[in-house]
């Protein structure tokens, strides 16, 4: 296994463990955060705060390097336009997220864990992404 593949695997493992520890695979925890008019569950706010606190500090240090540790170059998004496509995509994603309480990472982990809901959700998610990819082509 190449070092690049191993690094990606380890990073994914850390990410998946974090989602599990944070209870993000539990749709009711996520919906409890989104339901600001109900019995509000602040867990997701702590997850975001913890994650962004780390990336906000460490990304700056990492991006001072000439190149990634295992070679190649940094592939950071260059786009900065807040266009109709971005806003429509975010709105459609938000509506789906608020409907079920699954976003892509937790849904995939739930799928691997055998959660029945995720087995219904994930194939539809892949179909939705494929559809958007097709529409985006000229």
């Amino acid at each position: 296994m190449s070092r690049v593949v191993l690094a990606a695997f380890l990073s994914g493992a850390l990410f998946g463990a974090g989602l599990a520890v944070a209870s993000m695979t539990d749709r009711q925890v996520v919906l409890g955060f989104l339901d600001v008019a109900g019995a509000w569950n602040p867990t997701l706010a702590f997850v975001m705060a913890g994650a962004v606190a780390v990336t906000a500090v460490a990304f700056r240090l990492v991006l001072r390097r000439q190149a990634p540790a295992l070679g190649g170059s940094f592939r950071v998004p260059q786009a900065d336009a807040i266009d109709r496509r971005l806003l429509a995509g975010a709105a459609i994603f938000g509506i789906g997220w608020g409907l079920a309480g699954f976003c892509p990472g937790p849904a995939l982990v739930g799928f691997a864990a055998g959660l029945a809901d995720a087995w219904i959700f994930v194939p539809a998610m892949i179909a939705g992404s494929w559809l958007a990819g097709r529409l985006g082509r000229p």
Partner: protein
Amino acid sequence: MARGLAGGILIGLAAVLLLWSIGRIAGISGIASGALEGARGDRAWRIAFLAGMMLAGALALQFLPAPPRVQTGPTPLLLAAGLLVGFGTRLGNGCTSGHGVCGLGRFSIRSLAAVLVFMLCAMAMTFFMRHVIVNIGVSVT
């Protein structure tokens, strides 16, 4: 709350490790769509990341206290939600991880706009499902 914070820190460290080692952004929707439909030479790291995430996540759920409640939502609702999440994240180039964890960490205004829009839309949708539909007598849960 402690688990939320600890999990969040792990997620942040994962994103830092990916950027530091191979220079990539840990956005799950983009990694997944690229793993399925991306250029052949650019798939191995994506598949490895997703395999690690799914294996470690599923494994951790077996050992953690308070496993996710086994709950089966109505199938049409889950299908519709899945379609919208897949379509929206592809169109808007990111989800909670790409625009949220990584975009906010890069102080990207574009990502901040996306996060505000999807958070507000999700909150509005949850409000509608839990407090409006129920009150007009339609059962969805």
